Each structure stands twice: as structure tokens, then as C-alpha cells.
């Protein structure tokens, strides 16, 4: 039995009326990553033919390094490569991006890597890479006429959405698990008075968001019905790394894997830069980092299979704790084809990774960053990553987000009376 024709609307499902000309910049359409079925740009995220993920396809004009360099010191310098209008800078947003790329000499010496860099996204407006994706989602929500900006989240995404919504002056509703730690709730509730606590875990909250997105008019859930636009924001990590290295690609890059979206988009960014002639075409190896307590992609990689079995997460790296990663299969493809790997580390190794980055480079990273650092160490030790090649690791967020992960393992070296003799007794003097 053949399927009925899917009528893809030219008007929006999130708001009234057609979108304006150029609403999505150079984006052409939405294309299914699985079956290549193409649909019109709009609030669609799943292929009507096979449920596969839809992603943005473009008709890029000629883009030069000079044009990009003349742009603002935020992600909008790459607006020609994103699904946003040319006047995006006129719309209030958090203006994330162009974060520092630090030469990590001390960490490199510790890990035995000659030429190591840390892309530090902890300095974004709400201290994680999520500000990038949310800025792109906000643009799409605006253009589609959405009246409510929303997300299900446990942390970074909720912070980014709530802050961006406040800046944009759009009604913002954030859904969180009701058992989320109080400090994390405050981190989002400070920006919005419409925080909804759901009795359930993150997967339950995510499922609810998908159901609401299918029923409510005018709602843009950043990682559900405007996900294709949202996900493109992660490409800017790849663009910046290349530009900050002097318009070239690194030999190796290590990226944390939750849903797998960030890794696939950084790879997409590198491929686009090559296709546009902005960087030299050269091989680069992509590595994925997971915590053992939620490592379905790493398990599949090591088993040499494409079958990713969902898991019930049990790890302190909660921002990576997605048991059924939607982009996992693409992470496997990219890591295998590029000569990289997917590796996982224990919670103790995650904590050690956080401390190591802090004590070698002065960067306090969240658990996802600790995972990436620890996996990088393991990749060197196991011979999977070549320590002679230039390597970039991505730090996705700030350690103040996940203080509880390390508060029990770092403390005062000594508690003393306020006297010089007491200080000398500690042995900390010259």
C-alpha cells in the first residue's frame, strides 16, 4: 500500500502566515539524513517517510575569509553558513561564540601530546556551548512566528533557553525533572518565571516535550520541532576552531557525545569549510567521548556494530546521560571513517579529568569536559590517538554547573591558626 502524499505546508505550524523572504538565509530545505527525502523549511524535525532526522541543506554563495573576519566577534560572523536571516544581528539575542582557543601546553605535557588546544566554551553567556544552538533556534522560532520558546532540559540547555528568551522578550517555558538539584533549578528559574518541574526523569520530560510540541500551537521547542535549525549552531564550534588555527583544520579532535549532535555538526562544519575552499582539504580524525555509565555509542564502537542498544544512564556526567542517542549511528560512521574512535571513562576518571584541566590550564570544566579530558588521556594510553599530531579537545561548559561532582574531592590543603609558625609547619613555604 503506498503512502498518502505528505502535504508539506508553506506556512508555519508554529504561527500564522508565511515566513518572510530570506528568513533562513542560505538554507534551501530540510533533508532526511537517512533516506534523503526533502521537505520545505519549517517546524519539522522527523522525516515523514522514515522518521529519520531532518537536517538543513543549503545553497551557499561564495564566502570569503575576509567577509567572515569583518563580522562580529560572535557566531553571527558565520551567518552566511547558518539558517538565519542576514539581519540576524538586529534581533536581541545572547550573541554567543568566538570563545577562546587556548594552547594547552601544560595539559599537553601531562598527557604526552605535543600540540594540544582546548576550545573553551565555558565563557559563553550562560557558560556552555548550548548558547550557540539556542541562538539559532531562537532565530527560527522568531521567523516561524512562534509565541512560546521552550525546552526539556536538566541543565545547560535550560539555562541557555531561559536566558535567550528573556533577552528576546519572548514567553519562555522550561521543563525539568522535579528531582533536579536546587542550584540547577535556580540557574534557569532566575531567567524565567515559567519553569515547570515534571515528576519523572529526563527521558520522561523529553517525551512530554515531544507530545506538547505535537499538540500546542505556537510553541517552538528548541530541541524538538526546531531541532534542525538548533543543531546547526554547533557548526560554529568547528568554524571557530578552523579560523582560530589560522584557517586550517586540526589533525585530531575529541568531542563529548550525548545525543551525538555536536560531533556530527563539527564534522559537517569542517566538510563545509573544505567545500567552500576556506581551508585546505586534509585528513582529520574525530574521536567521541562518553562516560562509561552511559556509553551506548562507545559500546557499539568497540563491538564493531552499528546496532546501538539504548541504556539506562548511571553516571555523574548527567549532561551526557542520553541513553538512546539519536545521532549515535552518525557518530560511529564519522569516527570510523575518519580513523578516530569512541572511548569511555569511569566517573572517577571524569572527576580526575576535571581536576587535571583545572590544575594544568586554569579551566574549571563541567563533567562533560572532564569526560573529554579523561578520554583523551585514555586514547593516548591505548595508542588510539597519535600524540605527535595537533589535537583539539572541546570543553563544553563551566564547572560551576556541576560543583557537586568534585566538591568531595578537593578541599583546603591545611587549616591553620593565623600565625607564621603555623604556616611554616604546613611545609607549604619556600
Amino acid at each position, binding site marked *: 500500500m503506498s503512502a498518502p502524499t*505528505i502535504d508539506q505546508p508553506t506556512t508555519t505550524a508554529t504561527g500564522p502566515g508565511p515566513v518572510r523572504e530570506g528568513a533562513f538565509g542560505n538554507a534551501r530545505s530540510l533533508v532526511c539524513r537517512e533516506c534523503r527525502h526533502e521537505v520545505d523549511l519549517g517546524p519539522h524535525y522527523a522525516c515523514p517517510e522514515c522518521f529519520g532526522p531532518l537536517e538543513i541543506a543549503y545553497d551557499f554563495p561564495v564566502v570569503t575569509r575576509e567577509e567572515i573576519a569583518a563580522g562580529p566577534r560572535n557566531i553571527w560572523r558565520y551567518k552566511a553558513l547558518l539558517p538565519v536571516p542576514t539581519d540576524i544581528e538586529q534581533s536581541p539575542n545572547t550573541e554567543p561564540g568566538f570563545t577562546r582557543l587556548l594552547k594547552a601546553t601544560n595539559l599537553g605535557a601531562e598527557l604526552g601530546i605535543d600540540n594540544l588546544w582546548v576550545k573553551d566554551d565555558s565563557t559563553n553567556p550562560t557558560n556552555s556551548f548550548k548558547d550557540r544552538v539556542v541562538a539559532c533556534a531562537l532565530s527560527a522560532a522568531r521567523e516561524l512566528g512562534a509565541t512560546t520558546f521552550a525546552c526539556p532540559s536538566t541543565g545547560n540547555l535550560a539555562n541557555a533557553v531561559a536566558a535567550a528568551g528573556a533577552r528576546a522578550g519572548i514567553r519562555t517555558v522550561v521543563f525539568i525533572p522535579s528531582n533536579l538539584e536546587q542550584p540547577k533549578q535556580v540557574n534557569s528559574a532566575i531567567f524565567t518565571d515559567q519553569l515547570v518541574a515534571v515528576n519523572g526523569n529526563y527521558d520522561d520530560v523529553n517525551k512530554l516535550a515531544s*507530545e506538547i510540541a505535537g499538540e500546542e500551537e505556537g510553541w517552538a521547542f528548541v530541541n524538538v520541532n526546531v*531541532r534542525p535549525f538548533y543543531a546547526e549552531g554547533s557548526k560554529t564550534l568547528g568554524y571557530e576552531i578552523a579560523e582560530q588555527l589560522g584557517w586550517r583544520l586540526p589533525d585530531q579532535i575529541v568531542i563529548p557525545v550525548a545525543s551525538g549532535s555536536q560531533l556530527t555538526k563539527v564534522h559537517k562544519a569542517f566538510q563545509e569549510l573544505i567545500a567552500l575552499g576556506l581551508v585546505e582539504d586534509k585528513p582529520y580524525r574525530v574521536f567521541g567521548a562518553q562516560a562509561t555509565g552511559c556509553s551506548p555509542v562507545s559500546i557499539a564502537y568497540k563491538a564493531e556494530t552499528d546496532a546501538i542498544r539504548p541504556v539506562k544512564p548511571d553516571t555523574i556526567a548527567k549532561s551526557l546521560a*542520553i541513553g538512546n542517542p*539519536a545521532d549515535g549511528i552518525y557518530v560511529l560512521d564519522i569516527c570510523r571513517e575518519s580513523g578516530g574512535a569512541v572511548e569511555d571513562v569511569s566517573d572517577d576518571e571524569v572527576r580526575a579529568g576535571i581536576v587535571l584541566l583545572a590544575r594544568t590550564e586554569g579551566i574549571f570544566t563541567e563533567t562533560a569536559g572532564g569526560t573529554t579530558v579523561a578520554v583523551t588521556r585514555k586514547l593516548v594510553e591505548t595508542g588510539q590517538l597519535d600524540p605527535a599530531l595537533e589535537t583539539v579537545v572541546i570543553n563544553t561548559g563551566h564547572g560551576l554547573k556541576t560543583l557537586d561532582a568534585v566538591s568531595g574531592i578537593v578541599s583546603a590543603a591545611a587549616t591553620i591558626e593565623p600565625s607564621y609558625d603555623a604556616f611554616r609547619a604546613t611545609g607549604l613555604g619556600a
Partner: protein
Amino acid sequence: MSVSVRVPTILRTYTGGESEVSATGSTLAEVLGDLDASYPGIRARILDEDGRLRRFVNVYVGNDDVRFLENLDTATPDGVQVSVIPAVAGG
């Protein structure tokens, strides 16, 4: 066993726009079969050519993802809600 099935937006072309429909069956496989009898073609959107759940669709019986239960053999007690939801993750 009569159950209610929540239908995602992209499958409502089969159900005449209905977001929730009824079906019968004691297992998910039977429910999908009955659903297909009422709405021809809908099962082929949920299952692949080999008769397995498509990679990017999640099906819940009650609040539980059937991949953590018995997949298509998951029991569907009378009155339970079956939800078909495109797989998205992240955040």
C-alpha cells in the same frame, strides 16, 4: 484488549488528523496490526522492511520505552496508552 494510541503529527495523514485513536491487541505487534487494518499503511511507517521498529521511532507502552521491554512482543493491557514518538534527544 482495547488501547489508545497517540499518533505523532507526521502520521496523522493516515488517521484523518486524529491525534489519538483506538486499537485492539494483547501485544504491541497485534495493536500495530489492528491499527493498520483501520489505517492502511501506518504500520509500514513505524516498522521497517524487516518488520522491526524503525531506528528513529520510539514507542512507549504506558511510560515505558518498548526497547527496554519486549519490543513488539510487549504486552498491551486493556486501557493502556501506546505512544508513537519520533526519536529526538539532547538537552
